[in-house]
């Protein structure tokens, strides 16, 4: 299956071609190059998935397949960094997700970005991102993964800051880069600790289940926890940064400043689930050796999902609502991984997490692309500028509704099945966790339908320009993504991706399913009552819990806390004294040297009179003096 290399090479090639020739190529040509190469990649990915899932099963267990591996860099005697391609169920599943969403975004952008300045730049960055993301999921070792991890961070930075004349976009791109980079620092430290003790980066060796390679890491402890626990916790912090887990989620809502298709691709479907993918990738280590870290992951995910869901209710910018819903859904995936065990039915969480990753990528990309279509029509992100759009934009309306039903967990849409599996896994773990996540799922239904009604129903805004349905290049991806959103739940996902890679047949637990459906329906009904027709009830409710509503609207002041910590505490108490030390002590010493030299040279420059004969006199008498000294002493 060496052809999988082309999955990486095609986007790289189109990045280089479109990027380097951006002045020469027309908008149309660069769009076509990017989209064509992505089409090839998508077909290759589908073929790879088909070939992998049909041939690589031995004794009912999918085998990992290292298609390609070359030593890239040697570090010391045993340690080497490789570059290669690893195929296993989750990486193949990610290939399908990334290529599908990326292709749809490429097609969609042909319409959405039409006529924008920097169209070629946009397409080259999209290709760069696709290349990096593919490299990330196909990595054979954790260091290769880290390299591509940083590359997706860079592409995300470049695309968020695409409108570089807009100060908000620049600030958002910097924020995203700095926050994720800060988390990646922990990731890197974690990698180094792990590889220092195990003497390998390779996933194959780390996953082999051989306890002896971890013995030294478990043996040495630091601050009351073993080195392995530290390493795995640090690696998770890296994943939490990319996946916008509390308290590192602050960059994701701001990242919505980028073009909407970018939000759909990077900040909803692919890059932000890299953290989930990372945990899933290292799952055998987490479950086998550091279950306490895994539980920590579950609690972080659970808190984040409810926290983000509450904030999503109070937001008025439609992309922000979707951003917080993304954070909340990633929380679901983290919870599912955190509560999972390895074998059979106990490994349900792992399977459901990957399943939810898959379905979420589809319906959330659909939601974002739908939001892009709406923004394209009304030229605003704010709910107050929308309303009654269902008459003007039928395709967008129906696909958006399907995606809302899917994320709310209404059967038979895809989100229902995957979310229900997560809830079942959570109830297996503990009742508290199950109830917590069920409530969050109910909130999800409420805020999504609040969004839906505010956009498509509600008051009929007097539009200065009558909104119209988007061009085919934009509605086609919506319709295409609606297909997996509707039918995704029927995929026998347990046959493809499970924790122990053996077959698992999904059984819906109807008690839990009924409760979650009822809650979702209640959420939808409340939203219908409140927002379907214009009324002042929502405002009255908001006023009655004014303090809480304001706090949620301001995202519980987490950004302000960050600003307080960085500006007031770190800048004032650490940076400023250090800057003073640098200015006055370090620079002062060097300046002192310079002025001392200056002072001395002014005093002695009279010696250099320029009168040659005077020099000669001095020279002669000096010689005589030395001679005399040598002779008489």
């Amino acid at each position: 299956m060496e052809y999988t290399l082309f999955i990486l090479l095609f986007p790289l090639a189109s990045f280089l071609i479109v990027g380097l020739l951006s002045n020469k190529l027309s908008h149309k040509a660069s769009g076509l190059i990017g989209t064509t190469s992505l089409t090839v990649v998508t077909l290759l990915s589908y073929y790879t998935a088909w070939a992998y899932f049909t041939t690589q099963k031995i004794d009912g267990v999918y085998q990992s397949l290292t298609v390609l591996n070359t030593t890239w860099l040697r570090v010391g005697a045993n340690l080497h960094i490789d570059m290669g391609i690893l195929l296993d169920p989750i990486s193949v599943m990610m290939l399908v997700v990334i290529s599908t969403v990326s292709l749809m975004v490429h097609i969609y952008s042909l319409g959405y970005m039409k006529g924008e300045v920097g169209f070629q730049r946009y397409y080259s960055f999209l290709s760069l991102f696709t290349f990096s993301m593919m490299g990330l999921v196909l990595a054979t070792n954790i260091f290769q993964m880290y390299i591509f991890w940083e590359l997706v961070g860079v592409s995300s930075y470049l695309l968020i800051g695409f409108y570089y004349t807009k100060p908000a976009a620049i600030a958002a791109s910097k924020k995203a880069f700095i926050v994720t980079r800060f988390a990646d620092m922990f990731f890197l430290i974690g990698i180094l600790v792990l590889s220092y003790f195990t003497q390998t980066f390779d996933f194959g060796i780390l996953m082999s289940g051989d306890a002896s390679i971890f013995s030294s890491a478990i043996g040495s402890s630091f601050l009351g926890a073993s080195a392995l626990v530290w390493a795995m916790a640090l690696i998770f912090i890296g994943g939490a940064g990319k996946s916008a887990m509390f308290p590192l989620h602050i960059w994701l809502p701001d990242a919505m400043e980028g073009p909407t298709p970018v939000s759909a691709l990077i900040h909803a479907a692919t890059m932000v689930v890299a953290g989930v993918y990372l945990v899933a990738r290292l799952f055998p280590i987490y479950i086998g050796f550091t279950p306490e870290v895994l539980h920590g992951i579950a609690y972080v995910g659970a808190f984040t999902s409810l926290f983000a869901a509450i904030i999503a209710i109070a937001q008025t910018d439609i992309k922000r609502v979707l951003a917080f819903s993304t954070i909340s859904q990633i929380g679901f995936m983290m919870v599912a991984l955190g509560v999972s065990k390895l074998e059979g039915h106990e490994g349900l969480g792992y399977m459901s997490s990957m399943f939810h990753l898959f379905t979420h990528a589809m319906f959330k990309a659909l939601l974002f692309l739908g939001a892009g279509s709406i923004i394209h029509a009304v030229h605003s992100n704010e709910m107050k500028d929308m309303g009654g759009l269902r008459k003007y934009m039928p395709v967008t309306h129906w696909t958006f509704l399907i995606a809302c039903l899917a994320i709310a967990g209404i059967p038979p849409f895809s989100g229902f099945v995957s979310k229900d599996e997560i809830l079942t896994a959570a109830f297996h773990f503990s009742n508290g966790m199950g109830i917590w996540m069920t409530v969050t799922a109910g909130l999800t239904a409420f805020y999504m339908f609040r969004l839906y009604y505010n956009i498509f129903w509600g008051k009929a805004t007097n539009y200065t320009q009558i909104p119209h349905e988007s061009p085919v290049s934009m509605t086609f991806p919506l319709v295409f993504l609606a297909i997996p959103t509707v039918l995704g739940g029927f995929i026998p996902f347990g046959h493809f991706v499970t924790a122990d890679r053996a077959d698992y047949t999904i059984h819906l637990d109807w008690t839990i399913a009924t409760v979650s459906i009822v809650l979702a329906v209640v959420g939808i009904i409340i939203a219908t009552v409140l927002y379907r027709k214009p009324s002042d009830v929502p405002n009255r409710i908001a006023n009655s819990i004014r303090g809480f509503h304001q706090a949620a609207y301001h995202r519980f002041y987490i950004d302000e806390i960050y600003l307080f910590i960085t500006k007031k505490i770190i800048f004032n108490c650490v940076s400023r004294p250090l800057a003073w030390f640098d200015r006055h002590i370090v620079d002062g010493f060097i300046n002192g040297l310079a002025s001392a030299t200056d002072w001395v040279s002014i005093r002695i420059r009279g010696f250099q009179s320029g009168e040659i004969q005077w020099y000669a006199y001095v020279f002669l008498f000096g010689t005589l003096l030395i001679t005399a000294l040598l002779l008489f002493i």
Partner: protein
Amino acid sequence: MGEFLINAGGPIPMIGFQIVSLIMFFAGIYGFFTRRNLIMILISVELILNAVDINFAVFNRYLYPDQMEGLFFALFGIAIAACETAVAIAIIINVYRNFGNADVDNIKHLKG
């Protein structure tokens, strides 16, 4: 000292050459210090160099007659002196062009 100087008939003693060389050397030093004209200073320098060349030849001839290093060194010195004169004359011509005379005191204007 008298018997060295009045020594008619025999070969000229070494000290005789050295006295000539000494006189030339200090004449050169004196000229170098007291003259203001660059040409005269250059001539003084040539005197000093020639005095040294004489010394080389004399020491070689009298002390180590079967070796040739001193003579070669004298030749070498002459060649260097010729080069140095060429450079010095070029500089002096430029000084003359710039200042209208070849007075050594002018050159201190060149300092920074």
